[in-house]
């Protein structure tokens, strides 16, 4: 039975199904129990699984750190960090332990932990509630970094994240939590590490993820209408380890590429993608790859947020530049 769900509901239903399917799944985080999460992503779970769903003290290093121990005892911890920027409080636990438990012990201890959190801008939230640090997480070997872009993708990827033998940083685009509904197949599972070709095309490749995918699809539509160009759109979904093959194949075909992300430009994921294109598709590139990204400034408070975030207009301009050059 498929259902029409929002992203936040896809999270909730997937958590519920995984709690049901596997006794070793435990879900915990700040306000995720009695209140059902500040976005209601865990509503009803405590009532259904009172022995495996827990409210946590306000302490992110603690939340990440105890996961290492829970996992060592055979559990599958699924922790929520209330907003992505607060994972910084537990960044040391993430890098020093979660990401490397397997390599430190030559596979004799592992950390199949999922850390999920809302990320990104667009909902006029408070300071430090709108960050996108996927590139920083991707620079930490041993982590898998996943960003879904729709309800069905959320369900399919979150299920794979929870079942993954390795730790996954699962970043949910806050802006999409309630904005779209989509059919979500039951027990939907999408393999990690595989990009999705969202739209096929011949003249340029646009790469985008999270809530930027929606903006991108709008922009692509209007560019296609205006120029008659045919544009391929790729959502990497797993930001790291990145599915280079799908991207390379596409750009070898189109010869032109735009990468879109909300994170600041410098040292963002677009740089890494361009480097891979440079390595694997250099002789196919007909124009410089365009970056349409957040600026190299802290995400401003919301009165200036729209100025910071890439939008349809900026993405359109990027695509047009790459088509024209």
């Amino acid at each position: 039975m498929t259902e029409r769900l929002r992203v936040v509901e896809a999270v909730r239903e997937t958590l519920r199904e995984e709690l049901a399917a596997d006794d070793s799944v435990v879900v915990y985080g700040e306000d995720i129990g009695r209140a059902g999460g500040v976005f209601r992503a865990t509503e009803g779970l405590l009532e259904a699984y009172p022995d495996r769903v827990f409210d946590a003290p306000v302490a992110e290093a603690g939340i990440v750190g105890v996961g290492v121990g829970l996992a060592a005892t055979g559990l599958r911890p699924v922790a929520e960090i209330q907003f992505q920027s607060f994972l910084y409080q537990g960044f040391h636990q993430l890098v020093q332990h979660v990401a490397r438990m397997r390599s430190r012990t030559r596979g004799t201890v592992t950390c199949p932990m999922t850390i999920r959190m809302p990320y990104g801008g667009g909902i006029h939230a408070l300071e430090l509630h709108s960050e996108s640090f996927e590139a920083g997480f991707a620079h930490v070997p041993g982590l898998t970094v996943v960003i879904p872009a729709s309800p069905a993708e959320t369900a399919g990827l979150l299920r794979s994240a929870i079942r993954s033998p390795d730790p996954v940083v699962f970043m949910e685009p806050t802006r999409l939590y309630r904005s779209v509904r989509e059919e979500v197949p039951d027990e939907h599972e999408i393999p990690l590490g595989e990009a999705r070709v969202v739209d096929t095309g011949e003249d340029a490749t646009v790469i985008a993820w999270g809530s930027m995918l929606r903006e991108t699809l709008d922009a692509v539509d209007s560019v296609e209408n205006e120029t008659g160009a045919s544009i391929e759109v790729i959502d990497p979904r797993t930001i790291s380890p990145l599915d280079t093959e799908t991207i390379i194949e596409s750009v070898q075909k189109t010869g032109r590429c735009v990468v879109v992300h909300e994170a600041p430009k410098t040292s963002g994921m677009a740089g890494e993608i361009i480097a891979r294109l440079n390595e694997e598709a250099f002789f196919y590139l007909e124009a410089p790859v365009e970056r349409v990204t957040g600026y190299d400034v802290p995400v401003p408070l919301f009165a200036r947020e729209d100025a910071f975030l890439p939008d349809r207009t900026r993405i359109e301009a990027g695509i047009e530049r790459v088509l024209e050059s």
Partner: protein
Amino acid sequence: MPRETVAEFTIHSVQVLAEDGTIDAELVPSLTDDELLECYTAMKRARRLDERAISLQRRGELGTYAPAIGQEAAQIGSAFALAADDWVVPSFREQPALLVRGTSPQSVLEYAMGMEEGAEIPADANALPPAIPVGSQPLHAVGVGWGESIQGRPNVALTYFGDGATSEGDVYEALNFAGVYDAQTVFVCQNNRYAISTRLEDQTAAETLAQKAVAAGIDGIRVDGNDVLAVYRVVSEAIERARQGEPTLVEALTYRRSMHTTSDDPSVYRDPEEADEWEARDPIVRFQVFLEEQGILDADTKAQIDDQVETEIAEAIGQANERRERLDPADLFKYVYAEQPPELERQAAAFEGDRDD
């Protein structure tokens, strides 16, 4: 020495003006009638600003706002105890304290409108901007209190945080650093019983929050945070000790009467009865009854204060709205570095270019 006692600790709690109106004559602070009225006015101003802010938010004119309704005594009693050059290091719910320290209602509103303008710190104001990451700012207050002592100045830093914040390692590190460096710092933990939805028993097994001080080897004390006179008294003493390099953790027992923020619906996680109970224990009411009984506040003065506050806030709303209209999005690029690096210049230019299109 088979089994011997090596250390003992006691946590005290202080109340001056009881709920039934009884006063502890020995502990009552020596404030003039004018000072008491100023304090009362500050409480009313803060309450009214929060109320107006909530309704402005409901009308879409403000972003997420964290009201301090019910916590005015804890904040205003403590902020009042500071000297002019002392510092305040707030979290995100400290409008009452900030107003006492000279922040304008306009700034509070601008911040809630999502404008960095609202977090500007005037050159003569010893304060840091609101800190959103829970528990992150007490370390700054320790740095301030320690920095003042390094420079041989008597100023202290007073920092506010909540019950939930006490679970963050940063807060513990702050208490511990303060003890090591004899930082001129006072920690005011407003135990308003909730961290968003999370009740204290899910936050810690500690029976009081004042006892968190024991871990750092500094003083800890609890005060009735709805009793403005007790808060003033206890924090005044803590400030004097801090000037001598002895930090204190003050736990002010209070209650968050409204929502966590305007994005929150407390009915999901707490009984309406609980709120009713605490309405009856409102800190402004308790203080007002005291002032009336002491003959310091009469109906006229009260009406006059209400009017004054109303006017001030209305003006502030107007000014904040005006400033919002003049807001330049390109300021985004201006304050990242003292001098704009070339790449940022390019990005700023591209932004201007896009705007002109």
